[in-house]
C-alpha cells in the first residue's frame, strides 16, 4: 500500500502528539502519526506516578493522565493515527516504510517528517558487568512496563543498580506490590535522582541507598541468585577487600537513557556524538531539510513539560516548511 501525506510523525508519545497538534493548529491537514505500540502516549503510559504537567497544565498529573489529555485533544481533530505500526526505514526523500499486521508493508510519502521516537535504556552489555548471564536482569524501564502495563512482577527480592529516577520509582513500586527491595547501589558519590524521589521512594520504605558502590560480579546459572558489590575509589575502580555478597532474584539496572536514532542514521541524518540526537541547526530541523526532531529522540529530557514545549515549536517549524514549499 502507498500513501501520500503532508506530515508524517514517527512516534506517538508526548513529543509526537504535541508536534502533530501544533502542525494542525497552523493550518496543515493530512497529518499522520505512526506508533508501534497498541496505544498512543509513549513512555508516559507506564509512568503511573505523579510528577507531570505542573508547567503545561498547572496541576500535578500522572503520566497516563498527561498522555490521555493529549490523546483526547488529538481525537478532536482530523489527524490520523496508525497504532501497532512499526516504522522500518526512512529515506532522505522522506519515504517511510512501515509495517502492521492488517495492512502489511505501507509506503508513506511525506512532505515533512517529524521524528519523535523517544529514547531507550542503556543495556547491561554496555555496562560490562562480569559474571554469568542468568535470567532476572532487567532495565528499570522494562520492569516498569512489565509491572504497570502487563501486570507481571519480575521477581520477589530485588536489587537496583544505579539511582536514576526510574530506578527509585521502581523501588517504591515493587515494594508496594509486595516485593522486597534490599537496596539501591550507586557508583557515584551522589544520587542522580531527584531528592523528592529519594525521600518518597526510598526513605518512606526504609530502602537503603549505598553510594560509591557498584556490582562487580553477577551470580546464578539459570536465574540470578545474587551479586557481589564493592566500594569504588575516586576513579570509580572497585576497591579490593570491600566485596560483599547480596542475595537477589532480580536485578534492575537504572543506568541512563539514549535517544533512539537508528531510523535517523539510516536516513543519513547527522547525529551529534555527544547528545546522540540529530544535529539541529535551528528550529529543530535536522541536517535533512524537512525532517524535524523533537522529544527524547532529539535529546534526553527530564521533564515532559519541556518535551511538550519544544515539540510545539518543532510542529510549528514543520508547518512553516510545508507552507514555504507550496508557495
Amino acid at each position, binding site marked *: 500500500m502507498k500513501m501520500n501525506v503532508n506530515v508524517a510523525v514517527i512516534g506517538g508519545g508526548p513529543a509526537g502528539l504535541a508536534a502533530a497538534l501544533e502542525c494542525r493548529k497552523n493550518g496543515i491537514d493530512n497529518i499522520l502519526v505512526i506508533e508501534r505500540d497498541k496505544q498512543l*502516549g509513549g513512555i508516559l*503510559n507506564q509512568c*503511573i*506516578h505523579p510528577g507531570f504537567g505542573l508547567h503545561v497544565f498547572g496541576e500535578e498529573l500522572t503520566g497516563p*493522565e498527561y*498522555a490521555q489529555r493529549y490523546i483526547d485533544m488529538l481525537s478532536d481533530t482530523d489527524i490520523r493515527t496508525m497504532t501497532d505500526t512499526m516504522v522500518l526505514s526512512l529515506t532522505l526523500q522522506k519515504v517511510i516504510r512501515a509495517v502492521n499486521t492488517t495492512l502489511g508493508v505501507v509506503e508513506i510519502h511525506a512532505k515533512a517528517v517529524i521524528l519523535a521516537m523517544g529514547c531507550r535504556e542503556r543495556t547491561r552489555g554496555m555496562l560490562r558487568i562480569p559474571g554469568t548471564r542468568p535470567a532476572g536482569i532487567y532495565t528499570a524501564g522494562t520492569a516498569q512496563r512489565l509491572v*504497570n502495563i502487563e*501486570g507481571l512482577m519480575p521477581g520477589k527480592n530485588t536489587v537496583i543498580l544505579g539511582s536514576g529516577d526510574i530506578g527509585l520509582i521502581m523501588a517504591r513500586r515493587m515494594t508496594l506490590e509486595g516485593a522486597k527491595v534490599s537496596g539501591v547501589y550507586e557508583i557515584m558519590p551522589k544520587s542522580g535522582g531527584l531528592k523528592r524521589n529519594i525521600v518518597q521512594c526510598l526513605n*518512606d520504605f526504609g530502602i537503603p541507598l549505598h553510594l560509591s558502590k557498584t556490582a562487580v560480579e553477577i551470580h546464578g546459572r539459570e536465574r540470578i541468585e545474587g551479586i557481589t558489590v564493592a566500594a569504588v575509589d575516586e576513579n570509580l575502580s572497585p576497591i579490593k577487600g570491600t566485596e560483599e555478597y547480596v542475595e537477589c532474584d532480580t536485578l534492575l539496572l537504572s543506568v541512563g537513557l539514549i535517544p533512539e536514532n537508528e531510523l535517523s542514521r539510516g536516513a543519513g541524518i547527522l547525529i551529534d556524538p555527544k547528545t546522540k540526537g540529530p544535529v539541529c541547526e535551528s528550529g529543530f530541523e535536522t541536517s535533512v531539510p524537512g525532517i524535524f526532531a523533537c522529544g527524547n529522540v532529539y535529546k534526553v529530557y527530564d521533564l515532559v513539560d519541556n518535551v511538550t514545549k519544544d515539540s510545539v515549536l518543532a510542529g510549528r517549524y514543520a508547518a512553516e516548511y510545508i507552507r514555504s514549499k507550496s508557495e
Partner: protein
Amino acid sequence: MQTTNVTCVICPKGCNIEVDHENRDGKEVVLAVRNNKCPRGYKYASAEVVNPERVLTSTVRLAGGTYPRLSVKSEHPVPKTSLFDCMREIRKVSVTSPVKMGDIIIENVAGTGINIVATHNG
C-alpha cells in the same frame, strides 16, 4: 520530646529541616522547626511529622482493554501509614472496559475517605 530530620522536597534546595515534636494524647504536636530556609519548608516539615500523606498510584486488573492493567491513583493524598492497606484493596479489584479517566474505581479506600480513580481510559 523527639527530634526528626525531614528533607524538604518542595524546592530543589532540599533543606535538611529539624523538627522537635512530642506525642500528646496520641497526636504529634510540633514544638520547634529549625534549618528551614523559608516558610514553605516549615509547613511541609510540620505536616511530615504530624500526618505525612502521599498520593498513591497503582494499577488494577482490566478485562477487555488493550492491556491487562488500568492505571489508578488516590484522588487526594492518603496517610502514609495506610499505603499498604490501600494496596491490599487495590489488588483485589478488577474492572471491565470501557473505563474513562476520572471514573471512581474504589470508593473510600481502606476507610481513608478517599477514592481511587482511573488515570487513563481503558
